[in-house]
Structure formats: C-alpha cells, structure tokens
C-alpha cells in the first residue's frame, strides 16, 4: 500500500508544473505573413490560435509565454535580428556587411522604427517594451516557432553563439554579431517549418505583390477597416519602406510596389528563404548548436491518390493517380488548389502533390511534410522520450492537420491545445 501511495505521489508530482525541471519563458515566433498580438486585437484574432489562444493556454502552466512579431515578408537574417532586439531590448542593427550586400535594394543597417525599450522606467521615446530584457545564459529561453519562424529561430541561435558568419567584426559592433552567447537558448522547437524549403514557392510562380487589395482585405475582413492603416504591418523599415502611421495598407503597397525589395532577384526576403534553393543556402551556414535541444513537429493534410474513398476533395481531383498526393476534404479550402497533382483551376501546372520527387508530395497545403523534419544533413532522430541535445528530435507529424490547424486557426481547442501540452511537458523537463 505504501508503495502504491508513493507511486501515485510521484506521478502527481511529475505532472505538476511546480516540479518541472525548469520554468523558463517561452517565446512564440510566427511564420511568413504572420503578425503580432496587436494587429487584430480588436477582433481577438491571433496568429497563435485564431480565436483560440495558445499563448494564454500555455501560460496556464505558470510559465511566462511571449508572442514576438517580426517582419512578415523579411528574410530570416532580418527576422532573427529583429527577434533578438525585440526580446533583449535596443535598436535593431542588421549588420554592416549584410546591409552593404543589399544596399542596392535599399537595405539600411540601423533604421529608425525598430527599437524596443529594455527599461520601462527609462523609455523617453515610448518604444515598445522588450519581451524579456534579463535574457542571458542565466535566464535562458525556449523558442517555439511556426512555419518560417523555425528558420528564423535557427538563424538566431547561430548568430547568438557564433556571431557573424563572415568573420569577427565584418558586421560591425552590433550585439548580436559578437557571438559567444551560448546557453541563452535552452530549446528550439519548429512546427511545420520548411527546413529544406517548400515547393509551394515553385508551383505558384512569381512574386507579384498585389498586397494593396489583399492585405487591405485582411484588415477589413478582420473587422478593423481596410483603410485605417491600423492593421497589418509589413515592418520593412530596414528597407526604407516604413508605413506611415495614417497610411493605409493599400496606399502603402501602391507606393512601394516598385521597390527592389519586392523583386524576385532580391534574396534578402522571405520569398527566397522559403524556396528549396534559398533554404539550402540558409542551411549551408545555419547549423545545429551542440548546446541547444531541437524539436520538430510536422503536419500533413493530403492523401495518396485513389480511384475513390480516400477522403479527398473530388471536385478538385475527381480522377487521381496513386503515385501522387491530393488535398483532404478537411484541408482549409483556399490551400487545396496548389496542394494536389495540379494547381487548379486557373493555372495548369504541377501542384505540390506531384512536383519535384515522391518524398516531397505529402504536404499540409503550404509546406512539404518531409521538409518539416530537420534541415538536410543535420543529425536527427525520432523523439524517444529522452531528448538529444544538438540534434533534431522529431516528434512526428500531425496527420489530418493543415498548415493553419497546427496553430488553431480553424480548429477546436481539443484539436490544437494537446499539441502544445505535449510540447510543454517535454520542455519542462529540460
């Protein structure tokens, strides 16, 4: 009886956050076209949860959880810089060499409008407050990311520990480029991240920013009024493309659409990093740190082709090929057109479900499931319950989850919160 009581007590203690090995904060990092908590605050729609609230749910364990907001269309280098200063405080310094390399496109090393205050009592310019100014090796963080956010946090870890990839001093005196910040990140988790790129970048061609109408539409449909300018932000101050406080998104895009930043030839942008070629370039210098626990989680919302009865959308793909993948009925409707054998209906070209090679076909509507596991060439293994530091611990993929289901956009709490409960249980023991 005493033994049973001891076992029950041990189990209870193990499940209690108060007895977790750590209670270090979590910072959530969004993906391509993501946004911060202030963007649609009036309607309550959040990147992390939609009308659910993943951050609040995670805070229920007693752990601080912060939601970062970085450039939604920016490169991972720029996003990592912004993430650093947004957490620690200070004004973003994108690096001398980096800015010079992209000077033709208008890159600025130290733009205004990208500052965060570390001390609320000393904030004469009313900068937004940094998320966790005490951040250092004694006060480490867990980073949890979705989609492109996974590439961003990997880049941040690389820069924190190793500094400039082109040699000491090459990027100037920015705090992020000095290296040596080992131990600042305890773990890095990626959810549905295109570690090796996504073929969506290839199957929907050309980087044509019809953002005026569409981004304005997002804001309008989210209930904030498309012309107010008080909504979606592109955060491109580092390219001299600051959005005026009263400038509508429509006007902003109309004014900036000819800027070099939006051209395909600009490789300092999300559109490059998200493709297989851009991701490979990133992976050539962003390596896994031996000091960090890495976790990856995937998602899939396609099925193998079948002549019937595989729960796929038969209007988009009435006749199917068993070699290819097709979007499930429950994939969110606007992702279906590019997820299957063809991009339908307006452009007749191969879709993600039949493009590149067979191991790339399964996808979640935005990212190929095989790309979510780990960067090519880096150590990885299925998570067995004992995490391995410096290697990718793959938790598996959530089958029947599309790219936005995993962050709760169109999913019930019972579908999305268990993903983060499971993850928190793992992080708590690190």
């Amino acid at each position, binding site marked *: 009886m005493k033994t049973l009581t001891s076992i029950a007590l041990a189990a209870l203690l193990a499940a209690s956050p108060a007895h977790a090995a750590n209670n270090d904060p979590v910072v959530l990092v969004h993906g*391509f*076209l993501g946004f911060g908590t202030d963007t*649609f605050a009036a*309607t309550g*729609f959040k990147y992390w949860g*939609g*009308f659910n609230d993943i951050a609040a749910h995670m805070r229920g364990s007693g752990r601080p959880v912060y939601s970062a907001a970085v450039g939604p*269309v920016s490169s991972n280098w720029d996003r990592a810089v912004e993430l650093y200063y947004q957490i620690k405080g200070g004004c973003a310094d994108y690096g001398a060499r980096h800015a010079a390399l992209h000077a033709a496109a208008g890159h600025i090393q130290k733009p205004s409008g990208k500052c965060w205050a570390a001390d609320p009592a000393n904030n004469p310019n009313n900068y937004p407050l940094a998320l966790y100014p005490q951040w250092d090796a004694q006060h480490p963080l867990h980073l949890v990311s979705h989609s492109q956010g996974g590439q961003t946090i990997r880049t941040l870890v690389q820069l924190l520990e190793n500094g400039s990839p082109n040699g000491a001093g090459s990027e100037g005196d920015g705090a992020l480029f000095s290296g040596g910040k080992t131990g600042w990140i305890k773990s890095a988790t990626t959810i549905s991240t295109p570690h090796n790129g996504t073929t*969506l*970048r*290839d*199957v*929907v*061609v*050309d*980087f044509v*920013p*019809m*953002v005026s109408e*569409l981004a304005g*539409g*997002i804001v309008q*449909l*989210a209930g904030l009024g498309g012309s107010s300018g008080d909504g979606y932000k592109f955060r491109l101050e580092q390219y001299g493309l600051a959005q005026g406080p009263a400038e509508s998104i429509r006007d902003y895009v109309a004014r900036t659409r000819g800027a070099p930043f939006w051209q395909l030839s600009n490789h300092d942008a999300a*559109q490059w990093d998200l493709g297989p070629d851009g991701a490979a370039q990133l992976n050539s210098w962003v390596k896994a740190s031996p000091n960090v626990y890495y976790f990856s989680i995937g998602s899939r919302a396609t*099925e193998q082709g*079948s*002549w*019937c*009865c*595989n729960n*796929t959308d*038969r*209007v988009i*793909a009435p*006749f*199917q*090929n068993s*070699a*290819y993948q097709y979007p499930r009925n429950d994939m969110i409707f*606007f992702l279906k057109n590019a997820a299957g054998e*063809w991009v*339908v*209906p307006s*452009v*007749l*070209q191969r879709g993600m479900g*039949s493009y*590149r*090679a067979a191991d790339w076909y399964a996808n979640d509507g*935005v990212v190929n499931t095989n790309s979510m596991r780990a960067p090519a060439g880096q150590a990885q293994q299925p998570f067995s319950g004992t995490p391995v530091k410096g290697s990718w611990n793959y938790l*598996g*993929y*959530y*089958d*029947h*989850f599309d790219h*936005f289901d995993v962050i709760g*956009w*169109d999913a019930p709490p019972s579908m999305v919160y268990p993903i983060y409960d499971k993850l928190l249980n793992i992080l708590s023991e690190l």
Partner: protein
Amino acid sequence: MRLVLAIAALAAFLLAMLGPAQPPAAQPALSAPPAPTAVLPAGASTQAPVAAAAPPRRDARSTTQAPPDISQLLAVESSVRSARQRGAGENETYQLRASRLTAAQLESLLAMELAESNWTRRVAELRAHCGGSESCGARLRAEDQPRWRSYADAALRH
C-alpha cells in the same frame, strides 16, 4: 464566417505574394517517363489527368503535361457541386456532365461516386459502432483498412 473570410483573404494574399498571375508555359511535347500506376476505373478517358506523369525536379511550369480537357472536367465538377448545393437532383447533374464530358469520363465519375457513397455509409456505420480510432479499422476487410486511416481521427504519426 468572419474568420473564414479573413483566412481566405490571408491565403489569397499568401498566394499572391508567392505567386502567380502569368499564363502557363506552352505545352511541351510529352517526354516524361512511363506514368506511375493509375487508379482510374476501367473505361475512363485516357485524356484524364492520370495519364500524365512529370519527371521529378523540373520546373513545375515547363513540365506541365495536363491534358487540355482537365480544365473542362474541373469546371464541370465545380458546376456540379454548385448545383447540388442549391438542391439540384441527379438528373440535372447528369445533364450537366453529359453535355460537356466524354461518355467514358461520365461513366467513371458515376462509378467513383457510387463507390464513395457506399464507402461513406460504411464509415458512418463503423463510427457508430466503435468511434473514430484507427483500431476500429480492424473490423474491416483487410483491403479496406488502409482506406479507413484517412477517415479515422487525426493522429500524431512518425
């Protein structure tokens, strides 16, 4: 509804940012390797999209081998879905298809829909008996068990 509209706009935005707007490249001569096993029912049109297979790792546009009637087929099926949503009967949908598709395509669609209907009924029966877990599939014939997985509850897999 507002959420759906907002998500739709965001996705349209995403697609616009990543893409399209140019017409497809001219159709190259079909030089692909033999097509993988097709699962089209007997009698289906050889012009259906299953006949095309692309060599891997080529530009998605330049390997476009879609038969010219795929857009017609998709347009018809889109019309059929709309018609059904507004309550159209089988006669009307049959006429919609028969006027624009080949006899073989029509026959294949009807066979597929009949099979889907029968299968969906079996899925409903199975769910009523033992829920949506994958283990419920054990009650099915061996050849049906892989199908069940796509209808079973969402799961974390490796």
